[in-house]
């Protein structure tokens, strides 16, 4: 793939790129399907339940069934809603979630694109999803939805800043915003991985990322107990599915990003394990992060909204700024 990217663009190349895109789409969709299944299973185990087990062997087709159900469900748009915006909102939420996947390198060779501004690309696009959420909340013309949308927007912009700033440490270390370069920089054993020198940044990033995903313990926008369902209270059928889809695609993206930025990407934890292909390592790290996210959901209670905002601005932001200093001084000494 990197070689193809270097070449002159021909129709053949274009076709390959397109095919790659379709493959990625399918992979992502597949991931979402089984991530949901996996989540339900994980939470089930943790709560000493079985989890889905009816549809298909071990309940493996449960999610597929759910999707089909949503597809067949009647889809109503409230009369008072702003129709066009109401239709657009889930689409706007979904598109950036998928496009950011293009920036993530799976291994040295297995990349979709090799953008020099990878980090920025991710950050910039993921911000657009917020607009979709606010739009959805507003277009529903419903009090719950509006408040949910606003809340989610406030939360997302609040955590966006620590997220963005915490990444700066890794950018400084590798001197590039290219995700592939950042991953390459971490070659040679886990002590070279960014999460060690960047431990503050790593923690901030993880917390902020969970919040960005609107997942427990930060799932306030869709807090059932307060706002019924938050911004998608009026959504049903496949429109609702796209909100959900976007959320899980982001899980995919964030897990990939974390792996690349902090966990050494496709590199083995010890040099002698290099014989195992990079993709395996990547998937291992990736899966463990996904698992952790589900684990958090099963374990932690939801925080209060003022705690949420306070955490973002008063703890994470100063910490992430501190991280820059620490990194800079560390590098100045190391150099």
């Amino acid at each position: 793939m990197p070689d193809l990217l270097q070449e002159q663009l021909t129709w053949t190349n274009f076709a390959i790129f397109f095919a790659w895109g379709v493959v990625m789409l399918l992979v992502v969709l597949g991931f979402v399907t089984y991530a949901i299944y996996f989540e339900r299973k994980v939470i089930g185990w943790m709560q000493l339940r079985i989890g889905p087990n009816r549809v298909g062997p071990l309940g493996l087709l449960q999610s597929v069934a759910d999707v089909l159900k949503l597809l067949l469900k009647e889809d109503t748009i409230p009369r008072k809603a702003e129709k066009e915006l109401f239709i657009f909102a889930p689409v706007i939420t979904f598109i950036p979630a998928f496009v950011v996947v293009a920036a993530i390198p799976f291994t040295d060779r297995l990349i979709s694109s090799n953008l020099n501004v990878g980090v920025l690309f991710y950050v910039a696009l993921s911000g657009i999803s917020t607009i979709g959420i606010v739009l959805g909340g507003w277009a529903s013309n419903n009090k719950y939805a509006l408040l949910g949308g606003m809340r989610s927007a406030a939360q997302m912009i609040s955590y966006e800043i620590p997220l963005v700033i915490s990444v700066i440490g890794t950018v400084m270390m590798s001197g590039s915003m290219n995700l592939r370069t950042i991953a390459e920089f971490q070659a040679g054993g886990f002590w070279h991985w960014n999460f060690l020198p960047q431990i503050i940044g790593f923690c901030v990033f993880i917390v902020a990322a969970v919040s960005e995903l609107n997942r427990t313990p930060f799932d306030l926008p869709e807090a059932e107990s307060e706002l019924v369902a938050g911004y998608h209270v009026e959504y049903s059928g496949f429109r609702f599915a796209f909100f959900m889809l976007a959320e899980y695609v982001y899980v995919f993206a964030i897990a990939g990003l974390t792996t690349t930025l902090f966990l050494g990407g496709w590199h083995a934890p010890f040099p002698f394990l290099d014989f195992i292909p990079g993709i395996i390592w990547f998937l291992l790290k990736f899966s463990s992060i996904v698992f952790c996210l589900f684990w958090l959901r099963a374990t932690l209670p939801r925080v209060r909204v003022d705690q949420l905002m306070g955490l973002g601005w008063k703890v994470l932001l100063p910490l992430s700024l501190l991280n820059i200093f620490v990194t800079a001084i560390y590098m100045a000494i190391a150099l």
Partner: protein
Amino acid sequence: MYMNNYVVVTIFLFLGVILPITALSIGKWLRPYKPAESKYTTYESGNEPVGGGQVRFNIRYYLFALMFVIFDVETVFLYPWAVAYKQLGLFALVEMCIFVALLLVGLIYAWKKKVLQWTSI
């Protein structure tokens, strides 16, 4: 060809658009359509909706939006600096310290002025 990267991105974007369109079209073709007046009312926990849907919300949202705008834009300056930090040397650190210190002053200002305090909805 660096352009190729953006061709890929465009392809992803295209796919991202195509998927909802196809999915929703297929859904439209498959799903039932049985309209009833009550289905189209705004949901309000089962009651008749009271007042308009676009209620006035807390002024805090604006304040957070403002804070976001300021800090987000300031990071624009942090990124180029971070990329080039290795080549810039120690003095750049001092400069960035000043910059970040000023940002922190802004944060403290907001903090002390109770902008970060969330009240009610």
